[in-house]
């Protein structure tokens, strides 16, 4: 439905997004995920035709969008964007919601009818006569969404729709987004730095880093098979670096990392420098004398706990096993195992849960070390 080919945008000297190739299909929810400043907003603005790409092209249903302003406006009127800052005007909630229809020249009575039904939908009908700037953050964001969907857009663009909102408001808005996509068949493109939100809402995910789309696909793949260290860290993995493939027997490889031998499944060849991605929830922690039953291709590493960090209902346990290993355990099992700083434990990791990526980066990567990772 929307296709971007080689889209770049330069602001001053800085290339804020570069070489984006992306296709969004009708009816899907696509999440752009990446840290702040990675170019997500810029990309959404380009898709909404608010800005022009410096190079590359964007097509909408196969038609080019680089025509004169009135053509671009016609495309723009088939979309709607919700900005990170809700940007409500100093007017009532009803007036704020009515702008899109008003701009399209809809008669007043019809505007009122449409606006009231959408406000009903977002649960704000009781506040229609309130001045929008006096609302709470979550309510304002719902006004912004109501204002966007009242025109019945084919594409809804959302820029961090729940940043700075409490979990209850976030839930309301996420439900609303899902509902709009299911019931109205609206294509949704969502920018978020919250992996969980991407997971809850989106089918397809694109990860942005430093202005580039570094990985796109199913969210599960990105969680478990990040293509580089930066993405791995962004999805909650602490990659173990400086590994070298020692042997590889039909994809079951032995990898030497800082003096420790680890077995993992990979097709990478002997001698290849690698980093190991291990999802913390796949690491089992046990007491030293009770290593989990040794089955095929299981790594059992003995080590010392160096750090314990509460992580919601879990605890992240950092273990020094010669290599740094991070595990995620529930609070309760943490207490049962009596995990304390300096305690000796065993970390068990199945070879099949280790994802091996080539580690070709320089010894001391620059702060922008992801540039050559692609």
């Amino acid at each position, binding site marked *: 439905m929307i296709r971007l080919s080689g889209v770049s945008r330069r602001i001053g000297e800085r290339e804020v997004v570069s070489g984006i190739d992306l296709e969004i299909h009708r009816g899907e929810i696509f999440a752009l995920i990446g840290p702040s400043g990675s170019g997500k907003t810029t990309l959404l603005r380009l898709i909404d035709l608010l800005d022009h790409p410096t190079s590359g092209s964007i097509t909408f249903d196969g038609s080019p969008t680089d025509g004169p302003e009135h053509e671009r406006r016609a495309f723009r009127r088939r979309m709607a964007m919700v*900005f990170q800052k809700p940007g409500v005007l100093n007017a009532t909630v009803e007036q704020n919601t009515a*702008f899109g229809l008003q701009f399209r020249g809809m008669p007043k009575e019809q505007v009122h009818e449409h606006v009231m039904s959408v406000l009903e939908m977002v649960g704000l009908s009781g506040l229609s006569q309130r001045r929008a700037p006096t609302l709470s953050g979550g309510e304002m964001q719902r006004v912004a969404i109501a204002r966007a969907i009242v025109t019945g857009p084919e594409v809804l663009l959302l820029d961090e729709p729940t940043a700075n909102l409490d979990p209850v408001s976030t839930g309301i808005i996420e439900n609303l987004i899902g509902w709009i996509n299911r019931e109205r068949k609206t294509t949704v493109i969502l920018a978020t730095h919250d992996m969980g939100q991407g997971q809850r809402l989106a089918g397809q995910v694109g990860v942005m880093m430093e202005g580039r789309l570094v990985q796109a696909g199913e969210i599960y793949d990105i969680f478990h098979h990040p293509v580089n260290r930066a993405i791995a860290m962004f999805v909650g993995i602490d990659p173990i670096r400086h590994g070298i493939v020692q042997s590889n027997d039909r994809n079951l490889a032995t990898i030497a990392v800082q003096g420790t031998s680890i077995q993992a499944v990979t097709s990478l060849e002997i001698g290849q420098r690698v980093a190991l991605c291990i999802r913390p929830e796949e690491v089992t922690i046990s007491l030293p004398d009770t290593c989990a039953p040794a089955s095929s291709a299981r790594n059992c590493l003995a080590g010392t706990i160096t750090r314990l960090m509460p992580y919601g209902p879990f605890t992240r346990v950092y273990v020094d096993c010669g290599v740094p290993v991070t595990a995620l355990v529930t609070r309760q099992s943490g207490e049962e195992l009596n995990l304390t700083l300096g305690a000796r434990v065993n970390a068990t990791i199945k070879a099949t849960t280790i994802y091996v990526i080539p580690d070709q980066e320089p010894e001391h990567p620059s702060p922008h070390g992801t540039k050559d990772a692609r």
Partner: protein
Amino acid sequence: MITVQEIIDGITQAFQLIISLNPDLLEVTLLSLYISLCSTLIATSIAIPAGGLIHFHEFAGKRVIIAIIQTLYSVPTVIIGLVVFLLISRSGPFGAFGLLFTPTGMIIGQTILILPIMIGLVITALSGVDRNIRDTLVSLGATEFQSITQIVREARFAILGAVILGFGRAISEVGVAMIIGGNIRGETRVLTTSIALETGMGNFGLSIALGIILLVIALIVVLIMNLITASALSDSDRILGGPQA
């Protein structure tokens, strides 16, 4: 030296003059009001589009133009009076219209006087509207005219401030009124020129009375302007301090 007694006398005299509706005073007051309101109205209808044009377009020399406009805030009223005098006097380029020593001439002078302040403050008012608002409007499908209209509306209270300041400068200035009007009794005499004249003649009480009248008039005009801005945009509660709900 003026004494406290004279000030008290002046205030008493002011109320007597107002209550008795002294015809001379009425004429001077109405002319003041007429001239300053006309010039404010004309300047407003120029300043909003001009300010919008400058604010909403990027062009070379934009900052220079804004700096020049802001410099013109400081032009002494007598200089504007002098320039307009030279332009409309018998031998000047617009001498044929016979505008010198007429209320129309004074309106022209005052319009020129307050225009820079009003354009400058309109630009400031529009800059005060979050950039995000403009993006939102454009993304909602607004044409350029539609989005500018909404942004002007969003900036309405700040723009009202510009209008009130323009009116204040117009009704309170002496230079243009004196040089172009000439303080002719029954023709071009306004409140400020009367005050200058009466003070010169030592009638301090009357001067104070005229000053009080000027401020009362200004108060009434400002209140009315606020009410119009608020009610035309259906949010009178903001002005009247009513509930926000």
